């Protein structure tokens, strides 16, 4: 392992991520990993990396890096107006960098997360088979935390490699309006008929409380049937919980493993990557989708993305 770059400005929240710790929920350990796994995989695909090779996840405002070695890099996800030595580095394009080169990311106008991948990937602390950072428990990444100025990034392999350009048709098109499909969930029946209708027709706004754990949605207040408190039961990224205050909470990649609030919807697996690009103030519609249709969508979308996400959406 060799030092490949140094963080000169950390950005708002920059962490090392991979595809997460699948299969660890029975230990109380969340999935973590890239909040937008599709953009993450696109950055890796441009470098001919395996889809789960560790890359940097930048949030809303990106970091600045000084490279200390020769490498091939690629950016994907939200456009943060990246500049390499003062010249624009477009999203989804690869670039060769050398010792002394400066990569400066700005602020995302649309979308929330940009991924910086390097050929061969970055190295980090491994826990349960993943280097993804879960800062709440100080797991993975670099000392389990968000990056700070002065951090040195290590490469995990050969840092220069062949590049390719994934079909532009596969790039997510990010605006401030999101459209997610969702199935019902075990406690959907606790919503009043009026609230159920509202949930699947309202234009929701992402509140300021939006992070890797989940996003609180603002809109009509939902009312639930009065039932005895439920015993804690499993929840997952994409689960929408409805706490007693009536404001739905959409869980994301760092979601806790069990919860005690009614589960009123589950975002379909094929749309879940979009949650990682939603930011405070963005709007979102949820459309009710039958399970069979959701499986069909996942199968068709996975076929289109076979080169990018060979594992599909069910992990």
């Amino acid at each position, binding site marked *: 392992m060799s030092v490949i770059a140094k963080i000169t400005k950390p950005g708002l929240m920059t962490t090392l991520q991979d595809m997460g710790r699948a299969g660890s*929920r029975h230990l*109380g350990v969340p999935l973590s990993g890239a909040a937008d796994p599709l953009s993450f995989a696109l950055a890796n695909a441009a470098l001919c990396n395996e889809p789960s090779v560790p890359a940097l996840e930048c949030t809303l405002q990106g970091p600045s890096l000084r490279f200390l070695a020769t490498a091939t890099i690629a950016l994907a996800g939200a456009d943060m107006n990246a500049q390499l030595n003062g010249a624009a580095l477009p999203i989804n394009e690869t670039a060769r960098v050398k010792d002394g080169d400066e990569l400066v990311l700005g602020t995302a106008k649309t979308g929330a997360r940009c991924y910086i991948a390097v050929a061969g990937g970055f190295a980090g602390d491994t826990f349960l088979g993943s280097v993804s950072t879960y800062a709440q*428990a100080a797991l993975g990444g670099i000392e389990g935390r968000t990056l700070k100025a002065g951090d040195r990034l290590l490469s995990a392999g050969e840092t220069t490699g062949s590049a390719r350009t994934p079909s532009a048709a596969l790039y997510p098109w990010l605006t401030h309006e999101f459209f997610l499909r969702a*199935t019902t969930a075990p406690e959907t029946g606790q919503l009043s008929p009026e609230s159920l209708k509202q949930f699947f027709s309202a234009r929701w706004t992402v509140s300021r409380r939006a992070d890797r754990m989940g996003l609180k949605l603002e809109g009509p207040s939902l009312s639930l049937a009065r039932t005895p408190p439920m015993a804690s*039961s499993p929840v997952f990224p994409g689960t929408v919980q409805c706490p007693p205050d009536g404001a739905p909470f959409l869980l994301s990649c760092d979601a806790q493993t069990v*919860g005690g609030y009614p589960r009123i919807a589950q975002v379909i697996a094929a749309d879940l990557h979009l949650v990682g690009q939603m930011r405070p103030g963005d709007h979102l519609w949820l459309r009710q989708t039958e399970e*069979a249709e959701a499986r069909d969508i996942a199968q068709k979308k996975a076929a289109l993305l076979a080169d990018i996400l060979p594992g599909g959406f069910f992990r």
Partner: protein
Amino acid sequence: MSALSFEVSAFGEAGWLVQLQGGDMVATALAANAIADRLRPLKGVTDCVAGIDSVVLRFDPCVLSPQDARKMLETAVKEAPHDKAAPKTKIAIPVCYGGEFGPDLSALAKRLSLSEKEIIKQHSAQKYRVLTIGFAPGFAYLGPLPESLRTSRLESPRAHLPAGAVGIAGAMTGVYPLASPGGWPLIGRTPKKLFDAKAETPFLFEPGGEVTFTPVSEEEFARMEAAAS
């Protein structure tokens, strides 16, 4: 050994939830964990997680049809042992109760019409079982809590509580393994490390294990905390 009745419902396009109704809290939780452990390694199963009285099976529909996944879950429920098998592990947790270590103890004593001493005595006399692991890495839901100590969650959860905080809520008690937010009233704190990512065995608890609490003084707490770090 009572019968374990159950109800299966869809949880997303690639998940089934089974809600268990068993009567005895510990036996039901042990059954939930046995079901999850049995199914988790099987082909086509992407994850299987136990709650207190439920299990969610998640599957890859390209490998396993939803009907087969559901059958698999139902079979595992029907064949699950439903009794309070003897614990395989026994762990004693030292706790310094009350004061700054358990900031909700005095309010709880008033609400429950018990003295602080009586709450400590009852909480530390009970033998608990790990019902399931969840919420945070290494957080164990422990039960049953003695009937006389049962209370509701805080009206508004604390934004920050320290690692080792011991709380109670409903029929359960638990120890927060990490500094985190939390909604359970806090009665004490342990100096014992419950989760250590760098240790060979990062997790202290396992489902079904027996857990007891031993009261310690502030001085003992300080000594143990110094020794642990």
